[in-house]
């Protein structure tokens, strides 16, 4: 292709080759029956909230937690069925169903809570794994000041290595894959933690313990 490319690669190739070391064994930690406890402890340590729910109770728990925070406009994928579950008793639910160019204003200014599913969780670090798609786009977990994520307990892995291997990520990654561990934060001013600097100020994880 370009001359720069050819020159750079030629210089790199001209160098004396060094040995390619093997990858030594390394076993990240596992938690057995304490997985959820570890997940909760790690996420709470970074200002996240973990609430245990079931597939029967989660919509109602979500409704009350949004009400407690005074949320009147939330955004969620329609197939979560929130409108039907709440039957007019909850906040307005907006779908992210058009390209961002048409949604930007609402996303930046109006939406108070983004609700997404998590593809998996990681106990070691208290991490949510999100694979944004057309129904739950990337900014849904980023622009609103509150992010609520639904996590099925059965998808909680011990660590990132185990999860990657189990789900064979190398075979195909989405446009954007996110690991999220807590709300947005900064310590740039005198090492003092402040939340919500650019992304959500609050992260709540609803763990569906029966799934």
């Amino acid at each position, binding site marked *: 292709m370009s001359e720069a490319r050819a020159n750079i690669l030629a210089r790199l190739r001209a160098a004396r080759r060094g*040995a390619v*070391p093997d990858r030594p064994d390394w076993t990240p930690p596992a938690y057995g029956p304490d997985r959820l406890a570890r997940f909760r402890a790690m996420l709470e340590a970074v200002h996240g909230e973990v609430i245990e729910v079931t597939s029967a109770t989660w919509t109602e728990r979500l409704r009350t937690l949004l009400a407690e925070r005074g949320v009147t406009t939330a955004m969620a994928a329609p197939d979560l069925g929130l409108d039907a579950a709440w039957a007019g008793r909850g906040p307005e639910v907006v779908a992210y169903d058009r390209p961002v160019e048409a949604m930007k204003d609402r996303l930046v200014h109006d939406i108070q809570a983004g609700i997404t599913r998590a593809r998996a969780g990681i106990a070691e670090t208290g991490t949510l794994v999100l694979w944004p798609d057309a129904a739950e*786009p990337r900014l849904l977990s*980023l622009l609103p000041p509150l992010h609520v994520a639904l996590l099925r307990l059965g998808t909680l892995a011990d660590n990132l290595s185990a999860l990657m291997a189990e789900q064979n990520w190398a075979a195909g990654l989405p446009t954007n894959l996110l690991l999220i561990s807590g709300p947005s*934060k*900064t310590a740039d001013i005198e090492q003092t933690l402040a939340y919500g600097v650019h992304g959500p100020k609050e992260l709540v994880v609803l763990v569906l313990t029966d799934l």
Partner: protein
Amino acid sequence: MGDFTARAPKALNDPTLRRNFRRAMDGLMAKRALQFQDRDAWDALRARGAAAKARVVARLPELLEQLEARLTANGIRVHWAETTAQANAIVLDILRQAGARTVIKGKSMVSEEMELNHHLEAHGIAAIESDLGEYIIQLAGEAPSHIVMPCIHKNKAEIAALFAENIEGLGYTEDVDELTAAARRALRGRFAEADAGISGVNFAVAETGTLVLVENEGNGRLSTTLPPLHIAVMGIEKLAERLDDLPALLALLPRSATGQPITTYVNMISHPRRDGERDGPKAVHVVLLDSGRSRVHADPELRDTLRCIRCGACMNHCPVYSRVGGHTYKFVYPGPIGKILTPQLEGLDCAGDQPHASTLCNACVEVCPVRIPIADILVRLRAESIDPSGSAAVKGAGSMRKSLESLTWKGWALMHSVPLLHRLGTWALSRLGNLIPAAALPPLSTWMRVRSRPVFAPKTLHELAREKGYGNE
């Protein structure tokens, strides 16, 4: 640009700066230590991370080609730049073709190397830094003083004054939540209207063609998601061979940097927006910058420098950095990594004093998560700086050679390798050394500025040992 030594006193004599750094570095060291209490786990993790990066350095040309192929297959455009000037031209060209006039930037040290903001501004494109620390120093018109925490040299009061002056409608406040909220408000609009986002890259995975960015604030995600165009700039060494190298590297980077088990966000980008997707940039470009790295790679010992994952732990633990701060180094990369990288990228003729600005205390070597032998490389660069053979791999090799100095070392070596000379020399020193006027020996008078004069003992250990019968047989 050289003359680190001459710049140091300014920082040393600034008590506020000294206090700001000391507090910050003490905090960062303590937080990191908490993450690596289990020595065996740390050793195993570090060995894995070091091997992952050593493999990248050993296989760099193949992996770059693989990365390019995978990125291209994923719909991400790849550009190569030998120099920062080329990289700037490439970025400008992409922006112009897209008709972009405003850019929002995530944190990127490579863009600092390129002085990209200046370049874009000179061509009528406004580039706004969105990382809070970078935003603060952009307002102040300063350069980063740390590679992870760019405004670590400033305290709350200094930032409060800066914000009160620059952010409309904000009075003077030292409340960190209020200051942070003010920055959020000021930057939200900038994100929404930006025509392009520019970011760095922490790891580019050759196996899958994935750009991995770690951050806490979310500004990196915004910069790479909200604008219609995303340009990532990265050094040619910032690769990971395989996806399964990431867990160890991601476990090492934030824990070494800030003592966090993981950053809030790990953002893995493998494609531009695809059909049917609602957001994300429609075009993603990657600029691979050499700018001296391939020369570093040419030397089998020096190339270990390229393992660096830019965690900043070496500077957090450096007794020199923590006293003089980042700006004294004058170049983009301060601290121990800067002392080995800058002279290699810029040449020993303009940064040759940096490898000497170290006591070789090895504090950096002890904490480097990818086991870069920083102290050995410092010493090697000292040798290069005086090596007149010209065969040396480093630009500016031999430029610091002084004939009197080399003669002195030759004499020193002679005295210490010929026993008779040694006996005579030490005999003379122990009898006459204390009589030499300090003014006649500049190093001695320098030493004595803050210390008492070392006193030669009346008899050497050699003599005493002989008298006491410790000699051979």
